[in-house]
């Protein structure tokens, strides 16, 4: 009985893992499929291009669906995709043989993806997370090509170019380099019209995905802290048990927080 029960659980988990693998045959289309609003009708697979323009060697395509905007920039063998919704921005850079993706939410969490692998980050950017992001992005051909694109667009005042440069600043910020963001802020301030309205923060309910990202980053940090505790104090008799107890309490509290944050038990 117990063996059959366990077998069923394993089959269910394998089925779930198998169905969650992303397919990037059509990046723009798949980006439009991601995170559909609760109760919203299924979205079409392909973004609707509304306008195409050129700036030197770069071709921009702006598209969109209700509630989201997409931008695509193609230049010299590389493609840049960006999708913006009310609470999320997704950026994807592709060159032959390499791809890099950043997905960031307004809750301050980010996910980096590279050639099918992914890592989660908190935008509070602890030293550990910055090192993790740098290690993850190291040697990326896609990011190297994106540097060239950003350099080419630096002097452009087109809104599409500014959007690309904003993503460039964000990609650097998650890796601990805030210089491009500061440069962009200075450039924008210089062009800012006197009557421009500043963006304002608005209260927003946390969604399960935000809860999950916070939880995943937190338990990752707890595991690192546990390893550090064992390394630093493990030589003292009984301290391994103390470290384990501390880790257990913290992860159980995080787990109950996650359950509550995701809607709680239906009781």
């Amino acid at each position, binding site marked *: 009985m117990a063996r059959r029960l366990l077998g069923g659980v394993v089959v269910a988990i394998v089925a779930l893992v198998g169905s969650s693998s992303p397919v990037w045959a059509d990046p723009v289309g798949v980006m439009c499929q991601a995170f559909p609003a609760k109760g919203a009708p299924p979205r079409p697979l392909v973004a609707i291009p509304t306008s195409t323009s050129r700036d030197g060697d770069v071709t921009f395509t702006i598209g969109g669906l209700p509630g989201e905007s997409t931008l695509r920039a193609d230049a010299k063998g590389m493609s840049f995709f960006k999708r913006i919704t009310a609470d999320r921005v997704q950026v994807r850079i592709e060159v032959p043989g390499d791809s890099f993706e950043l997905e960031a939410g307004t809750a301050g969490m980010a996910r980096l993806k590279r050639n099918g692998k992914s890592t989660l980050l908190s935008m509070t950017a602890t030293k550990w997370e910055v090192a993790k992001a740098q290690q993850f992005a190291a040697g990326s051909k896609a990011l190297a090509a994106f540097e060239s694109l950003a350099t080419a667009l630096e002097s452009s005042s087109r809104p599409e170019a500014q959007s690309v440069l904003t993503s460039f600043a964000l990609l650097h910020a998650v890796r601990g380099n805030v210089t491009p963001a500061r440069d962009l802020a200075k450039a924008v301030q210089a062009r800012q019209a006197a009557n421009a309205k500043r963006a304002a923060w608005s209260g927003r309910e946390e969604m399960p995905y935000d809860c999950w990202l916070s939880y*995943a980053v937190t338990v990752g940090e707890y595991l690192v802290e546990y390893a550090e505790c064992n390394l630093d104090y493990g030589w003292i008799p009984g301290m391994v048990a103390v470290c384990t107890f501390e880790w257990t309490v913290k992860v159980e509290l*995080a*787990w109950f927080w996650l359950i509550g944050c995701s809607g709680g038990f239906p009781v």
Partner: protein
Amino acid sequence: MSRLLWILGEVVFGVLLSGGVAALAVPTADAAGLATGPWVLWATLAACLLVAIGAGERLRKRRNRPRAA
């Protein structure tokens, strides 16, 4: 009453177990580059509850089995 308490204990143990399993599995999956999401919460919870209830019921039946003389 005793059975109700036993089931309640199994559920509480299952939830606690799922917390420990997820806390180990999620950073491991993250390090391996596997994408996780909120579904992992419910999948882990369901799996651990099934395991805890299955094991608990088995233990209860063994304890209640009349001992051979």
